[in-house]
Protein backbone atom coordinates (compact mmCIF):
# COMPACT_ATOMS: atom_id res chain seq x y z
CA UNK A 1 0.00 0.00 0.00
CA UNK A 2 1.97 2.94 -1.28
CA UNK A 3 -0.59 5.70 -1.46
CA UNK A 4 -0.12 8.05 1.50
CA UNK A 5 -3.57 9.51 1.05
CA UNK A 6 -6.85 7.63 0.96
CA UNK A 7 -9.45 7.89 -1.77
CA UNK A 8 -12.29 10.10 -0.64
CA UNK A 9 -14.89 7.37 -1.02
CA UNK A 10 -13.00 5.17 1.43
CA UNK A 11 -12.82 7.95 4.00
CA UNK A 12 -16.53 8.60 3.53
CA UNK A 13 -17.34 4.89 3.72
CA UNK A 14 -15.38 4.47 6.96
CA UNK A 15 -17.13 7.51 8.43
CA UNK A 16 -20.53 6.06 7.50
CA UNK A 17 -19.62 2.74 9.12
CA UNK A 18 -18.56 4.53 12.31
CA UNK A 19 -21.81 6.51 12.26
CA UNK A 20 -23.78 3.27 12.02
CA UNK A 21 -21.96 2.04 15.11
CA UNK A 22 -22.41 5.30 16.98
CA UNK A 23 -24.66 3.71 19.62
CA UNK A 24 -21.68 1.68 20.88
CA UNK A 25 -19.16 3.09 23.36
CA UNK A 26 -16.52 5.16 21.52
CA UNK A 27 -13.66 2.86 22.60
CA UNK A 28 -15.53 -0.09 21.13
CA UNK A 29 -16.07 1.71 17.84
CA UNK A 30 -12.39 2.66 17.79
CA UNK A 31 -11.34 -0.95 18.42
CA UNK A 32 -13.68 -2.25 15.75
CA UNK A 33 -12.77 0.21 13.04
CA UNK A 34 -9.13 0.89 13.77
CA UNK A 35 -7.27 0.17 10.57
CA UNK A 36 -10.49 0.04 8.58
CA UNK A 37 -9.27 2.64 6.12
CA UNK A 38 -5.97 0.86 5.64
CA UNK A 39 -7.67 -2.48 5.07
CA UNK A 40 -10.17 -0.97 2.66
CA UNK A 41 -7.48 0.92 0.80
CA UNK A 42 -5.50 -2.25 0.37
CA UNK A 43 -8.50 -4.18 -0.88
CA UNK A 44 -9.35 -1.30 -3.18
CA UNK A 45 -5.79 -1.14 -4.53
CA UNK A 46 -5.79 -4.86 -5.26
CA UNK A 47 -9.02 -4.75 -7.16
CA UNK A 48 -9.96 -1.38 -8.57
CA UNK A 49 -13.25 -2.67 -9.94
CA UNK A 50 -14.32 -3.63 -6.43
CA UNK A 51 -17.28 -1.66 -5.21
CA UNK A 52 -17.68 -0.53 -1.64
CA UNK A 53 -20.59 -2.29 0.04
CA UNK A 54 -23.45 -0.63 1.88
CA UNK A 55 -21.93 0.89 5.02
CA UNK A 56 -24.92 0.00 7.21
CA UNK A 57 -24.81 -3.62 6.11
CA UNK A 58 -21.06 -3.64 6.58
CA UNK A 59 -21.43 -2.22 10.08
CA UNK A 60 -24.11 -4.80 10.91
CA UNK A 61 -21.80 -7.58 9.74
CA UNK A 62 -18.93 -6.20 11.85
CA UNK A 63 -21.22 -6.00 14.84
CA UNK A 64 -22.59 -9.50 14.40
CA UNK A 65 -19.17 -11.07 13.90
CA UNK A 66 -17.81 -9.22 16.92
CA UNK A 67 -20.69 -10.54 19.01
CA UNK A 68 -21.93 -7.04 19.82
CA UNK A 69 -25.62 -6.25 20.35
CA UNK A 70 -27.48 -4.90 17.37
CA UNK A 71 -28.85 -1.39 17.86
CA UNK A 72 -32.40 -2.72 18.38
CA UNK A 73 -31.45 -4.66 21.48
CA UNK A 74 -29.61 -2.22 23.66
CA UNK A 75 -29.06 -2.55 27.38
CA UNK A 76 -29.13 1.19 27.98
CA UNK A 77 -32.33 1.77 30.03
CA UNK A 78 -33.26 5.06 28.35
CA UNK A 79 -32.98 3.52 24.94
CA UNK A 80 -34.90 0.49 26.11
CA UNK A 81 -37.71 2.73 27.33
CA UNK A 82 -37.74 4.54 23.99
CA UNK A 83 -37.79 1.21 22.19
CA UNK A 84 -40.58 0.01 24.39
CA UNK A 85 -42.60 3.16 23.78
CA UNK A 86 -42.01 2.90 20.05
CA UNK A 87 -43.21 -0.69 19.91
CA UNK A 88 -46.27 0.20 21.99
CA UNK A 89 -47.06 3.00 19.55
CA UNK A 90 -46.60 0.59 16.69
CA UNK A 91 -49.00 -1.87 18.33
CA UNK A 92 -51.48 0.92 19.04
CA UNK A 93 -51.26 2.07 15.44
CA UNK A 94 -51.89 -1.45 14.20
CA UNK A 95 -54.83 -2.08 16.50
CA UNK A 96 -56.39 1.31 15.65
CA UNK A 97 -55.97 0.68 11.95
CA UNK A 98 -57.83 -2.61 12.23
CA UNK A 99 -61.00 -0.51 12.11
CA UNK A 100 -61.58 0.95 8.61
CA UNK A 101 -63.01 4.22 9.95
CA UNK A 102 -60.07 4.76 12.28
CA UNK A 103 -57.74 3.82 9.46
CA UNK A 104 -59.23 6.58 7.31
CA UNK A 105 -59.00 9.10 10.15
CA UNK A 106 -55.34 8.26 10.77
CA UNK A 107 -54.57 8.53 7.06
CA UNK A 108 -56.25 11.90 7.04
CA UNK A 109 -54.20 13.06 10.04
CA UNK A 110 -51.02 11.88 8.37
CA UNK A 111 -51.98 13.85 5.26
CA UNK A 112 -52.11 16.98 7.45
CA UNK A 113 -48.43 16.74 8.29
CA UNK A 114 -47.37 19.52 5.86
CA UNK A 115 -49.76 21.88 7.67
CA UNK A 116 -48.04 20.99 10.91
CA UNK A 117 -44.68 21.77 9.31
CA UNK A 118 -45.94 25.28 8.54
CA UNK A 119 -47.18 25.73 12.11
CA UNK A 120 -43.89 24.41 13.43
CA UNK A 121 -41.95 26.89 11.27
CA UNK A 122 -44.15 29.66 12.57
CA UNK A 123 -43.51 28.51 16.16
CA UNK A 124 -39.77 28.57 15.47
CA UNK A 125 -40.20 32.10 14.13
CA UNK A 126 -41.95 33.07 17.37
CA UNK A 127 -39.01 31.71 19.39
CA UNK A 128 -36.29 33.27 17.23
CA UNK A 129 -38.34 36.47 16.91
CA UNK A 130 -37.70 37.11 20.60
CA UNK A 131 -34.08 37.75 19.62
CA UNK A 132 -35.34 40.47 17.29
CA UNK A 133 -37.46 41.90 20.08
CA UNK A 134 -40.72 40.62 18.64
CA UNK A 135 -43.14 39.16 21.14
CA UNK A 136 -46.82 38.46 20.83
CA UNK A 137 -47.17 39.51 17.19
CA UNK A 138 -48.73 36.69 15.24
CA UNK A 139 -47.32 37.79 11.90
CA UNK A 140 -44.16 39.67 10.95
CA UNK A 141 -44.30 43.44 10.90
CA UNK A 142 -41.35 44.05 8.62
CA UNK A 143 -39.61 42.63 5.59
CA UNK A 144 -36.74 41.26 7.69
CA UNK A 145 -39.19 39.39 9.90
CA UNK A 146 -41.05 38.04 6.89
CA UNK A 147 -37.74 36.70 5.58
CA UNK A 148 -37.06 35.18 8.99
CA UNK A 149 -40.48 33.53 9.00
CA UNK A 150 -39.85 32.20 5.49
CA UNK A 151 -36.50 30.71 6.52
CA UNK A 152 -38.03 29.07 9.57
CA UNK A 153 -40.92 27.56 7.61
CA UNK A 154 -38.57 26.31 4.89
CA UNK A 155 -36.34 24.75 7.54
CA UNK A 156 -39.30 23.06 9.18
CA UNK A 157 -40.45 21.62 5.86
CA UNK A 158 -36.94 20.32 5.14
CA UNK A 159 -36.86 18.67 8.56
CA UNK A 160 -40.23 17.10 7.78
CA UNK A 161 -39.36 15.88 4.30
CA UNK A 162 -36.01 14.27 4.99
CA UNK A 163 -35.30 10.97 6.68
CA UNK A 164 -33.15 11.28 9.80
CA UNK A 165 -31.08 8.95 11.97
CA UNK A 166 -32.62 7.79 15.23
CA UNK A 167 -30.89 10.31 17.52
CA UNK A 168 -32.02 13.15 15.25
CA UNK A 169 -35.58 11.84 15.31
CA UNK A 170 -35.49 12.03 19.09
CA UNK A 171 -34.46 15.69 18.84
CA UNK A 172 -37.25 16.33 16.33
CA UNK A 173 -39.85 14.79 18.65
CA UNK A 174 -38.62 16.98 21.51
CA UNK A 175 -38.65 20.01 19.18
CA UNK A 176 -42.20 19.21 18.10
CA UNK A 177 -43.35 19.07 21.71
CA UNK A 178 -41.70 22.45 22.31
CA UNK A 179 -43.33 23.87 19.17
CA UNK A 180 -46.76 22.76 20.42
CA UNK A 181 -46.15 24.51 23.75
CA UNK A 182 -44.96 27.69 22.02
CA UNK A 183 -47.91 27.67 19.62
CA UNK A 184 -50.47 27.20 22.39
CA UNK A 185 -48.90 29.84 24.63
CA UNK A 186 -48.67 32.42 21.83
CA UNK A 187 -52.24 31.77 20.74
CA UNK A 188 -53.49 32.01 24.32
CA UNK A 189 -52.11 35.56 24.44
CA UNK A 190 -54.02 36.65 21.36
CA UNK A 191 -56.78 39.00 22.59
CA UNK A 192 -60.31 37.87 21.93
CA UNK A 193 -63.02 40.20 20.64
CA UNK A 194 -64.24 40.64 24.23
CA UNK A 195 -60.72 41.58 25.37
CA UNK A 196 -60.47 44.16 22.61
CA UNK A 197 -63.83 45.70 23.51
CA UNK A 198 -62.85 45.89 27.16
CA UNK A 199 -59.51 47.46 26.26
CA UNK A 200 -61.22 50.01 24.01
CA UNK A 201 -63.68 50.92 26.74
CA UNK A 202 -60.88 51.27 29.25
CA UNK A 203 -58.76 53.47 27.02
CA UNK A 204 -61.68 55.64 25.93
CA UNK A 205 -62.69 56.31 29.51
CA UNK A 206 -59.18 56.59 30.86
CA UNK A 207 -58.15 59.99 32.10
CA UNK A 208 -55.35 60.11 29.65
CA UNK A 209 -55.07 63.26 27.60
CA UNK A 210 -56.46 65.87 29.96
CA UNK A 211 -55.12 64.82 33.30
CA UNK A 212 -51.92 65.75 34.91
CA UNK A 213 -50.53 67.14 38.11
CA UNK A 214 -52.54 70.30 37.66
CA UNK A 215 -55.92 68.80 38.29
CA UNK A 216 -58.53 66.19 37.65
CA UNK A 217 -60.95 65.42 34.90
CA UNK A 218 -64.14 67.37 34.73
CA UNK A 219 -67.23 65.89 33.17
CA UNK A 220 -70.87 66.80 32.75
CA UNK A 221 -73.26 63.97 32.02
CA UNK A 222 -70.31 61.72 31.32
CA UNK A 223 -68.95 64.00 28.60
CA UNK A 224 -65.61 65.51 29.18
CA UNK A 225 -65.31 69.21 29.83
CA UNK A 226 -62.55 70.55 27.63
CA UNK A 227 -63.15 74.28 27.97
CA UNK A 228 -65.23 76.63 30.11
CA UNK A 229 -67.11 79.72 28.98
CA UNK A 230 -68.04 82.28 31.61
CA UNK A 231 -70.71 84.97 31.26
CA UNK A 232 -71.06 87.89 33.59
CA UNK A 233 -74.21 89.03 35.41
CA UNK A 234 -75.50 90.84 32.33
CA UNK A 235 -75.06 87.65 30.25
CA UNK A 236 -72.09 88.88 28.26
CA UNK A 237 -69.08 86.59 27.69
CA UNK A 238 -66.07 87.13 29.94
CA UNK A 239 -62.51 86.17 29.12
CA UNK A 240 -59.55 85.58 31.41
CA UNK A 241 -61.50 83.97 34.23
CA UNK A 242 -59.32 82.12 36.74
CA UNK A 243 -61.09 79.21 38.38
CA UNK A 244 -60.29 77.44 41.66
CA UNK A 245 -62.02 74.78 43.64
CA UNK A 246 -63.05 74.95 47.32
CA UNK A 247 -59.52 74.08 48.42
CA UNK A 248 -57.90 76.69 46.23
CA UNK A 249 -56.64 74.19 43.69
CA UNK A 250 -56.74 75.36 40.07
CA UNK A 251 -59.71 73.92 38.17
CA UNK A 252 -58.22 72.62 34.99
CA UNK A 253 -59.76 70.91 32.02
CA UNK A 254 -56.52 70.26 30.26
CA UNK A 255 -53.29 68.97 31.71
CA UNK A 256 -50.24 70.92 30.68
CA UNK A 257 -49.56 69.80 27.15
CA UNK A 258 -53.11 68.65 26.59
CA UNK A 259 -54.51 68.50 23.11
CA UNK A 260 -57.86 68.61 21.46
CA UNK A 261 -59.48 69.35 18.17
CA UNK A 262 -59.12 72.76 16.60
CA UNK A 263 -61.34 72.15 13.58
CA UNK A 264 -63.84 69.32 13.48
CA UNK A 265 -65.27 68.02 10.24
CA UNK A 266 -68.76 68.76 11.34
CA UNK A 267 -71.30 68.28 14.07
CA UNK A 268 -72.23 64.84 12.76
CA UNK A 269 -68.65 63.74 12.73
CA UNK A 270 -67.51 64.82 16.16
CA UNK A 271 -65.05 61.98 16.58
CA UNK A 272 -63.06 62.86 13.50
CA UNK A 273 -60.74 65.80 13.78
CA UNK A 274 -59.75 67.86 10.76
CA UNK A 275 -57.11 69.98 12.42
CA UNK A 276 -55.78 69.07 15.86
CA UNK A 277 -54.88 71.73 18.33
CA UNK A 278 -52.87 72.20 21.50
CA UNK A 279 -54.34 74.07 24.44
CA UNK A 280 -52.57 77.30 25.26
CA UNK A 281 -52.16 78.26 28.91
CA UNK A 282 -52.33 81.80 30.18
CA UNK A 283 -49.30 83.55 31.61
CA UNK A 284 -49.55 85.07 35.07
CA UNK A 285 -47.80 88.22 36.25
CA UNK A 286 -45.41 85.99 38.18
CA UNK A 287 -44.28 84.53 34.86
CA UNK A 288 -45.89 81.17 35.65
CA UNK A 289 -48.22 79.50 33.19
CA UNK A 290 -51.76 78.83 34.34
CA UNK A 291 -54.03 76.11 32.98
CA UNK A 292 -57.11 77.30 34.86
CA UNK A 293 -57.80 80.43 32.86
CA UNK A 294 -60.93 80.33 30.67
CA UNK A 295 -61.97 80.25 27.93
CA UNK A 296 -58.76 78.56 27.07
CA UNK A 297 -57.30 79.23 23.64
CA UNK A 298 -55.93 76.72 21.26
CA UNK A 299 -53.09 76.69 18.76
CA UNK A 300 -52.85 74.54 15.67
CA UNK A 301 -50.81 71.35 16.00
CA UNK A 302 -50.25 68.25 13.92
CA UNK A 303 -51.61 64.72 14.22
CA UNK A 304 -48.09 63.41 14.64
CA UNK A 305 -47.51 65.47 17.73
CA UNK A 306 -50.83 66.99 18.79
CA UNK A 307 -49.47 68.69 21.90
CA UNK A 308 -46.80 70.57 19.98
CA UNK A 309 -47.94 73.85 18.35
CA UNK A 310 -47.16 74.32 14.69
CA UNK A 311 -44.32 76.80 14.31
CA UNK A 312 -45.62 80.31 13.72
CA UNK A 313 -49.24 79.43 14.47
CA UNK A 314 -51.16 81.98 16.55
CA UNK A 315 -53.35 80.93 19.50
CA UNK A 316 -57.00 81.15 18.56
CA UNK A 317 -60.09 81.80 20.63
CA UNK A 318 -62.44 78.87 20.78
CA UNK A 319 -65.95 79.56 19.53
CA UNK A 320 -68.24 80.27 22.44
CA UNK A 321 -71.42 78.21 22.65
CA UNK A 322 -73.50 81.39 23.11
CA UNK A 323 -72.78 84.95 22.12
CA UNK A 324 -74.91 86.14 25.00
CA UNK A 325 -76.90 84.45 27.73
CA UNK A 326 -79.85 85.79 29.73
CA UNK A 327 -78.78 88.33 32.35
CA UNK A 328 -79.31 87.78 36.06
CA UNK A 329 -82.49 89.11 37.58
CA UNK A 330 -80.47 91.20 39.99
CA UNK A 331 -78.60 92.78 37.13
CA UNK A 332 -81.86 93.50 35.22
CA UNK A 333 -83.39 95.12 38.31
CA UNK A 334 -80.29 97.21 38.91
CA UNK A 335 -79.91 98.39 35.36
CA UNK A 336 -83.01 100.66 35.07
CA UNK A 337 -82.30 102.25 38.45
CA UNK A 338 -78.81 103.03 37.35
CA UNK A 339 -80.25 104.46 34.16
CA UNK A 340 -82.77 106.61 36.05
CA UNK A 341 -80.08 107.74 38.36
CA UNK A 342 -77.89 108.85 35.53
CA UNK A 343 -80.83 110.59 33.88
CA UNK A 344 -81.48 112.44 37.12
CA UNK A 345 -77.88 113.39 37.38
CA UNK A 346 -77.93 114.82 33.91
Amino acid at each position, binding site marked *: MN*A*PTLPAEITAFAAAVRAALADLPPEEVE*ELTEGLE*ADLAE*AYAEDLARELPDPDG*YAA*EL*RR*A*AGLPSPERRSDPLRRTAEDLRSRLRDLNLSLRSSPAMDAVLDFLVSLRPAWWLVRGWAAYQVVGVLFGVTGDLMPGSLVLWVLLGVMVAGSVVVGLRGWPAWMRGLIVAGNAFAVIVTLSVLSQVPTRADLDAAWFESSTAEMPYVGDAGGLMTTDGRQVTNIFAYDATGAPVSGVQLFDQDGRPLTTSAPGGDGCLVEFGPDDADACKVPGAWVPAVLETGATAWNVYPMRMVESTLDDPTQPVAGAEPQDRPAPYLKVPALMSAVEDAPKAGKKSEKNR
Partner: protein
Amino acid sequence: MDATQLLKGVLDVAVLAVVHDEDGYGYDVVRRLRAAGLNEVGDASVYGTLRRLYSAGALTSYVVPSEEGPHRKYYGITPQGRTMLAEQRKTWADFARTMDRLLEGVAS
Protein backbone atom coordinates in the same frame (compact mmCIF):
# COMPACT_ATOMS: atom_id res chain seq x y z
CA MET B 1 -25.68 -25.34 -0.21
CA ASP B 2 -24.62 -21.84 0.65
CA ALA B 3 -21.02 -21.88 1.80
CA THR B 4 -21.44 -18.59 3.66
CA GLN B 5 -23.85 -20.31 6.05
CA LEU B 6 -21.31 -23.03 6.79
CA LEU B 7 -18.58 -20.45 7.14
CA LYS B 8 -20.33 -18.72 10.02
CA GLY B 9 -19.86 -21.70 12.28
CA VAL B 10 -16.20 -22.21 11.49
CA LEU B 11 -14.91 -18.68 11.00
CA ASP B 12 -13.48 -18.56 14.53
CA VAL B 13 -11.32 -21.60 14.05
CA ALA B 14 -10.35 -20.52 10.53
CA VAL B 15 -9.19 -17.10 11.76
CA LEU B 16 -7.34 -18.67 14.71
CA ALA B 17 -5.58 -21.04 12.32
CA VAL B 18 -4.48 -18.25 10.00
CA VAL B 19 -3.18 -16.06 12.84
CA HIS B 20 -1.51 -19.12 14.41
CA ASP B 21 0.61 -19.53 11.27
CA GLU B 22 1.72 -15.93 11.32
CA ASP B 23 0.62 -12.64 12.90
CA GLY B 24 -1.53 -10.59 10.56
CA TYR B 25 -3.57 -7.41 10.20
CA GLY B 26 -7.21 -7.30 9.20
CA TYR B 27 -7.09 -7.39 5.44
CA ASP B 28 -4.04 -9.67 5.49
CA VAL B 29 -6.13 -12.26 7.37
CA VAL B 30 -8.96 -11.86 4.85
CA ARG B 31 -6.55 -12.37 1.97
CA ARG B 32 -5.03 -15.47 3.48
CA LEU B 33 -8.46 -16.97 4.17
CA ARG B 34 -9.44 -16.34 0.56
CA ALA B 35 -6.12 -17.70 -0.71
CA ALA B 36 -6.85 -20.83 1.30
CA GLY B 37 -10.08 -21.23 -0.65
CA LEU B 38 -12.67 -19.48 1.53
CA ASN B 39 -13.67 -17.09 -1.24
CA GLU B 40 -16.99 -16.20 0.29
CA VAL B 41 -15.54 -14.73 3.45
CA GLY B 42 -16.62 -11.13 4.10
CA ASP B 43 -14.20 -8.45 5.27
CA ALA B 44 -16.41 -7.19 8.02
CA SER B 45 -17.07 -10.70 9.35
CA VAL B 46 -13.36 -11.29 9.64
CA TYR B 47 -12.67 -7.93 11.32
CA GLY B 48 -15.51 -8.49 13.74
CA THR B 49 -14.28 -12.00 14.50
CA LEU B 50 -10.75 -10.73 15.13
CA ARG B 51 -12.15 -8.16 17.52
CA ARG B 52 -14.25 -10.74 19.37
CA LEU B 53 -11.39 -13.21 19.67
CA TYR B 54 -9.23 -10.39 20.97
CA SER B 55 -11.86 -9.51 23.59
CA ALA B 56 -12.07 -13.17 24.57
CA GLY B 57 -8.30 -13.19 25.17
CA ALA B 58 -7.49 -15.54 22.29
CA LEU B 59 -5.56 -12.85 20.41
CA THR B 60 -3.19 -10.03 21.24
CA SER B 61 -2.88 -6.94 19.13
CA TYR B 62 -0.21 -4.40 18.41
CA VAL B 63 0.02 -1.44 16.12
CA VAL B 64 2.77 -1.23 13.51
CA PRO B 65 3.47 2.30 12.37
CA SER B 66 3.74 2.79 8.66
CA GLU B 67 5.43 5.67 6.92
CA GLU B 68 3.54 5.16 3.72
CA GLY B 69 -0.04 4.84 4.83
CA PRO B 70 -2.27 4.40 7.86
CA HIS B 71 -0.95 2.37 10.78
CA ARG B 72 -1.67 -1.33 10.80
CA LYS B 73 -3.15 -3.24 13.70
CA TYR B 74 -1.61 -6.72 13.83
CA TYR B 75 -3.10 -9.66 15.67
CA GLY B 76 -1.15 -12.54 17.17
CA ILE B 77 -2.33 -15.67 18.96
CA THR B 78 -2.13 -16.08 22.75
CA PRO B 79 -1.67 -19.34 24.71
CA GLN B 80 -5.39 -19.18 25.41
CA GLY B 81 -6.00 -18.83 21.67
CA ARG B 82 -3.82 -21.85 21.01
CA THR B 83 -5.87 -23.91 23.47
CA MET B 84 -9.05 -22.69 21.84
CA LEU B 85 -7.69 -23.55 18.40
CA ALA B 86 -6.73 -27.06 19.52
CA GLU B 87 -10.19 -27.67 20.99
CA GLN B 88 -12.01 -26.35 17.97
CA ARG B 89 -9.76 -28.25 15.58
CA LYS B 90 -10.73 -31.43 17.37
CA THR B 91 -14.41 -30.50 17.36
CA TRP B 92 -14.22 -29.76 13.64
CA ALA B 93 -12.34 -32.99 12.88
CA ASP B 94 -14.95 -35.06 14.74
CA PHE B 95 -17.75 -33.17 13.03
CA ALA B 96 -16.18 -33.45 9.57
CA ARG B 97 -15.56 -37.20 10.05
CA THR B 98 -19.15 -37.68 11.09
CA MET B 99 -20.42 -35.74 8.11
CA ASP B 100 -18.09 -37.52 5.74
CA ARG B 101 -19.28 -40.89 6.98
CA LEU B 102 -22.89 -39.80 6.72
CA LEU B 103 -22.55 -38.46 3.21
CA GLU B 104 -20.38 -41.36 1.96
CA GLY B 105 -23.08 -43.72 3.20
CA VAL B 106 -25.59 -41.89 1.04
CA ALA B 107 -23.30 -42.09 -2.01
CA SER B 108 -22.65 -45.86 -1.77
